[in-house]
């Protein structure tokens, strides 16, 4: 199913090695590809630290987690890191349960 059908909005800011991505909507099997592509492209453009603001994320499933882990791997391979900021209680729980809060930095 094409990514465009999923309700997601990404607001990207990028300057040199630092980038931020504000995500709004649901990160699931229909939308995770767009997020993964964005993270990969930012890394290719030279971003080494990418902060993803997930305060407006209503829902994230295992497909969405894949996008985050792939983003982490791409950055890690280039000496960079991924930061998740402002998770909701449910997103924070998911990151904790899956151990992803130990993989990348999580900022309240």
């Amino acid at each position, binding site marked *: 199913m094409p990514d465009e059908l999923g309700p997601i909005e990404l607001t990207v800011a990028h300057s040199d090695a630092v980038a931020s991505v504000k995500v709004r909507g649901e990160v699931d099997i229909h939308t995770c590809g767009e997020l993964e592509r964005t993270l990969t492209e930012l890394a290719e453009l030279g971003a080494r630290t990418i902060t993803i603001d997930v305060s407006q994320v209503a829902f994230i499933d*295992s497909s969405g987690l*894949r996008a985050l*882990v*792939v983003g982490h791997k791409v950055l890690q391979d280039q000496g960079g890191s991924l930061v998740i900021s402002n998770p909701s209680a449910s997103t924070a729980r998911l990151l904790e349960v*899956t*151990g992803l809060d*130990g*993989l990348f930095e999580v900022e309240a």
Partner: protein
Amino acid sequence: MANGPRVVVFTPTPVLTVSIERDTTGAEEVHLHAGGQGVWVARMLRSLGCEPIVCGPFGGEPGAVARSILDRDGVVLAAVEVARPNAANVEEGASEQRRSIVHTEPGPLDRHELDDLYGVALSAAADAAAVVLTGSVWPHVLPAETFGRLASDLGALGVPVVADLSGDQLRDALDHGVAVLKISDEELERDGLIVRRGEAEARQALHDLRERGARDVVISRAHEPVLAAVGGRAYRLDGPSLEVVEARGSGDSMTAAIAAGIALGLDAEVMLRLAVAAGAVNVTRHGLGGADGDVVRRLAETSVRIEVIEDGPSEPRSSRSRPSAGP
């Protein structure tokens, strides 16, 4: 605790086993074991110098007990707490006299539990040298498509996947590509992938399974030589004939040794020797997957005969599958 490369073992159905046995004086003894295919694979991985992480759901009293046994044994867990109890088996007797008295099945994982388990697997695998996908003999526990998604997502992370699967779980994983498939000729026959067991059929299956998405394939054949296609070659391997104490778990030990070979960056032939030796040694002792790593390595060097039976077999079709060696 081993400090070697990390290998994640996806273990969808851990099992608690209560064994009632008699000691040499005839007195009854009760033993508790945490088991299931993934746990057995993990134990052999540890014997071979890797750091296995068992990724699985644990629930109810069987889950709590299995988890505490694994903790006590120093097995690293990436555990997800689930509502329904794990499978449990109460058995009496040892080896060929063993009989199951009570057997309970695990319940299905609900959507959130499955999502959590999936996320735990991805998280643990992100820094792993290899991942082993073990299956569930109870198809209702999780959808077969989970294995395909995992194969695909782990491939996207660049982590080699060793699959020890059969049935729909195998079919789905192959559709997305795996680095190595370990399967027995008995499973091939049961899944309709060969019409009868025999060397010619198994050799054809090496080609067919590569066509379907396995980069490399290892076929165990009970007491017959193992057949394998790794890289550009096909092999026949003969292991030592050892006294059988416990026939179960031999294939799981082979799978563990294959994953260890990848994680440790071993040459293909060394990896195959190790796999055959691990499978052979496993049958000589009680306690599945617990063979001594030094014994396995020594047998691999001295008592496994390897023969190249085909040089330059057809390359696998899948460009999505992972490299054949190295993390």
